[in-house]
């Protein structure tokens, strides 16, 4: 009978029922979509990082990463590279000569990292060619070609075909300087990266740096991220004196991004849940106050407080339960659609790209996350439902009936 009354009460104030059902479904939708959006953002960031920046694994001399000095190069690096390339789990591997140095033009100079790359392999590895916005990629025949970023071009007032001077230390600590002709301008979504990286062919700098045909960095792209730990262990066994790091360790800021995103999700989730709780408490409180007389009458007739509490709770529960499937379906639909089409945030891209994000995000969701959101929403809704129900218990029949 309580169920009957509670159920029929749902239709008494349609506006109120619609408000609560909407609050629950919107809360659920917003929470789910938010989670999916952050998933997409993180995945996006990681994919970008792996596919265009750091690759899966990087091999260095154990001291290289702390000192960034050319004397800490990889001995026997050509043979090492061949061994790695022949591994069946490896998709591409490329060697690099990484140098800290300066780029100078008539207009000024700037501290940069010189990426001495194997032109063709590098392109497969980090899609360098695709980042070029003007000019053409390295020519196998020519040497002393340089690709600079749009940022540096502007800063140093350079143009294609103009020359820039690169200065850096060689293995012995002597200063080496060389003129390079600008053949292309690149631009990535990572502004700080653009400000400090130029590309030349490895063969143009290796001898100057004192490590002819050598590398101080080998980057490895695996066929799948799933074998990351396995491959790392295998390579470490083959090259025990080499430092091998996965993308997770190379870019700790990615881990930071993930935890910041987690925190943001938590904060937004909190806001969504608070709004939900507020909505339910207020609307149901109104419903209880509107029915003061009626509740007074029920108390007078002999319906005990427990039953009245349950009756109001049930009413709210029905509304919550009605809101859940709507919210889930809406959320799954939105996620499924945006996962296909992607969410283009190009209007916010300026701020985004400075953090290294691409402008199109593909939200995604795991069942586990959906369950968590659902649980949080239901829990919040149920807890909020307790307050109005409790309010009804404080009514005094004689006073209520005078209303």
């Amino acid at each position: 009978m309580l169920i009957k009354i509670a159920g029929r009460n749902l239709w008494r104030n349609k506006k109120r029922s619609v408000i609560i059902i909407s609050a629950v479904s919107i809360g659920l939708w917003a929470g789910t979509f938010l989670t999916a959006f952050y998933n997409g953002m993180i995945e996006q960031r990681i994919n970008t990082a792996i596919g265009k920046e750091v690759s899966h694994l990087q091999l260095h001399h154990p001291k290289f990463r702390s000192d960034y000095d050319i004397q800490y190069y990889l001995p026997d690096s050509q043979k090492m590279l061949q061994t790695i390339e022949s591994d069946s789990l490896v998709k591409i591997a490329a060697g690099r000569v990484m140098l800290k140095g300066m780029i100078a033009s008539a207009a000024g100079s700037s501290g940069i990292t010189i990426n001495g790359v194997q032109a063709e392999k590098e392109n497969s590895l980090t899609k360098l060619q695709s980042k070029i916005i003007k000019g053409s990629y390295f020519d196998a025949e020519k040497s002393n070609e340089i690709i600079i970023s749009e940022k540096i071009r502007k800063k140093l007032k350079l143009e294609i075909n103009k020359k820039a001077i690169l200065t850096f230390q060689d293995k012995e600590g002597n200063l080496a300087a060389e003129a390079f002709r600008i053949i292309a301008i690149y631009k990535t979504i990572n502004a700080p990266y653009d400000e400090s990286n130029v590309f030349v062919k490895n063969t143009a700098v290796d001898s100057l740096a004192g490590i002819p045909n050598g590398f101080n960095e080998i980057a490895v792209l695996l066929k799948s991220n799933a074998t990351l730990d396995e491959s790392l262990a295998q390579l470490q066994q083959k090259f025990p004196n080499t430092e091998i790091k996965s993308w997770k360790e190379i870019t700790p800021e990615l881990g930071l991004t993930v935890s910041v995103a987690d925190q943001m999700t938590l904060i937004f989730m909190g806001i969504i849940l608070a709004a939900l709780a507020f909505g339910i408490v207020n609307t149901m409180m109104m419903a209880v106050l509107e029915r003061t007389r009626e509740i007074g009458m029920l108390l007078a007739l002999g319906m005990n407080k427990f039953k009245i509490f349950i009756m109001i709770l049930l009413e709210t529960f029905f509304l919550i339960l009605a809101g859940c499937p709507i919210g889930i379906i809406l959320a799954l639909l939105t996620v499924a659609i945006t996962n296909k089409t992607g969410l283009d945030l190009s209007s916010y891209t300026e701020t985004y790209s400075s953090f290294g994000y691409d402008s199109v995000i593909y939200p995604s969701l795991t069942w586990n996350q959906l369950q968590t959101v659902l649980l949080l929403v239901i829990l919040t809704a149920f807890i909020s439902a307790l307050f109005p129900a409790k309010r009804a218990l404080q009514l005094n029949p004689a006073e209520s009936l005078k209303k």
Partner: protein
Amino acid sequence: MKETVIDAHNLSKIYDEKTIPVYALNKVHLHISRGEFTAIKGPSGSGKTTLLNMIGGLDEPSEGFVEINGTNITELKGNELIDFRLNNIGFVFQSYNLIPVLTAKENIEFIMLLQKRPKEETDQRVLELLKQIGLEDKIDKRPQELSGGQQQRVAVARALAPKPQFILADEPTANLDSVSAENLLDIMLKLNQEENMTFIFSTHDQRVINRARRVITMEDGKIVEDTAETVIIHKPK
């Protein structure tokens, strides 16, 4: 001697005790026997509702106590009191008596369902009462589909269904036209006679008062006249 149903001793209800005390009820004694058909009359604010609320256990007296069939209900607390009301007292209020989402039949059986009476007994009783109040054809109608008079008849049937010790009706005809009021009174009287049900109701409608067998008159929280007794006036000290 007739069987006593209600015994109210020295009942007082004082509002605003801290500032200017208002005696809604002032040292009232009342004795009701089984089968009575009693009207409480008096001007607005004279304490009729307050007295009925005290007798019905809807409010606590500031002084005195109420005994129903030997049980001191003033000592009952919370759900104990609610359960006592459920099993012993029938209520009819002035308006908005019925549960709006339940049909006439469901409203009448409501209390019996709360009491967990067997289904057959309940169904039978509901049908019998619907017939007695002349609303067999309105069995599945919701309160909003019934006229005010029909609603009050359903309320009376609901109060009567579980055969309580007595029925309290606070101005049951106040919102009714005179035909409906007469009609309701007819039904109450009929049930009073057929089932020996005790009715106590408040009213200021003279025609309703004329139908009562005992009339209690209240003024300023005191009983100033009672046709069942010769002298009732309690002189304040």
